[in-house]
């Protein structure tokens, strides 16, 4: 760019003498040199008027329209995003709530089942306890009955033995006392 004027200077002496009268651009005696400027001013002024009044505002309008459209679309997208975010949040909340509800139900049922089981176990225990007590009582009764029979058997046996050995019936009172003592000494009286 800077080289060109320098190159021009190199060429000027060569071409200047070829073109008589020098550069046409500096020929201000020619009325066309100044008239082109006057016409140029008019043409540029008209260009400026048409561009600034009609052509450029048209471009500006379209660009503005597009910018506002883009802004509007962005806004719509933003709103949609906020809406979807809210929906997702709502869904998450509902899921959490449902899960908590289910857990609570499960826990309640579990508690109920546990309580029932405990109750059943308690009643069973009670029943068993009662049966045990009954059985024990029966055992004790049987034992007592057996014990009563033992004294009878011991008395009869002792009477028979004494009668066989001595040939005389033993004194009833002494026999009873002796058997009572013997039984007591064995812990069976």
């Amino acid at each position: 760019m800077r080289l060109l004027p320098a190159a021009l200077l190199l060429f000027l002496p060569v071409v200047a003498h070829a073109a008589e009268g020098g550069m046409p651009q500096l020929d201000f005696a020619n009325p066309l040199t100044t008239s082109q400027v006057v016409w140029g001013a008019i043409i540029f002024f008209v260009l400026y008027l048409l561009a600034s009044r009609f052509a450029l505002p048209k471009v500006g309008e379209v660009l503005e329209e597009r910018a506002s459209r883009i802004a509007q679309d962005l806004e719509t997208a933003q709103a949609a995003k906020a809406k979807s975010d809210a929906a997702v949040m709502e869904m998450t909340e509902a899921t959490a709530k449902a899960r908590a509800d289910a857990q609570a139900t499960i826990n309640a049922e579990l508690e109920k089942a546990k309580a029932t089981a405990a109750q059943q176990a308690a009643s069973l225990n009670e029943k068993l306890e009662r049966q045990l007590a009954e059985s024990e009582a029966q055992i004790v009764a049987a034992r007592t009955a057996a014990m009563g029979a033992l004294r009878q058997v011991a008395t009869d046996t002792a009477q028979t033995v004494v009668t066989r050995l001595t040939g005389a019936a033993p004194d009833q009172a002494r026999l009873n006392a002796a058997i009572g003592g013997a039984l007591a000494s064995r812990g069976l009286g």
Partner: protein
Amino acid sequence: MAAEGSSSIDALSQFKLSTALGPIGASVNFTQSNMMMVIAGLLTLALLWVGMRPRAMVPGRLQAAAELAYEFILSMCTETIGPEGRRFFPFVFSLFFFILFGNLMGVFPYAFTFTSHIAVTLALSLLVFILVTVVALKEHGVHFFSYFVPAGVPKVLIPLMVLIEVISYLSRIISLSVRLFANMMAGHVMLEVFGAFIVMLGAAGAIGWIPAALSLSVNTALIGFELLVATLQAYVFAVLTCIYLHDAVHLH
């Protein structure tokens, strides 16, 4: 930049002005340069008008190009000048595309490049200069003249500094116009010279064919280079306009 097969290289006649549009154009001194200006303006408006006709939410190719152009210049304005840059956006847009299409069309054969005329570029830079000064005066009133007094300069040096600042402020007109003019003219002179080389060497017989082919490849490269310069110079002109407007609005 048509290359006529003349014996001597006539690189400057391509810049010669003539009237366009027949006798009507001749009677009002309407030149072929103005014709190209009209086409440049029509192309600028067509890009916006035809491009934005579908008003599609998802733009097609031409609409995307129009929107890209709009946003490119708008961001250039707002980033360089600040939020106030929106006010100058239509002006910078018209300026950039007027110059860009003027430069680009000039690369086509037989087309005239109006940006290769110092009178045109000077008028454009004067327009920018006057706009910048008017904006600065409107924005800051008399305070605007403090722009020429740099802060923190010893009192003795102030007259000298003010002189330098005023000269540098005024030289914007020259630098802005000459940069565009010189770049465009240089490129077109080079194209013409190498184009003439091709014709002259090609006509010289078999010995000249290789250098003629070399000249042709140079010209091919130059056309690519010209496209770059055309775009770059339009951009530079617009960016410098924005920077000057920034100074006018903010006083540094």
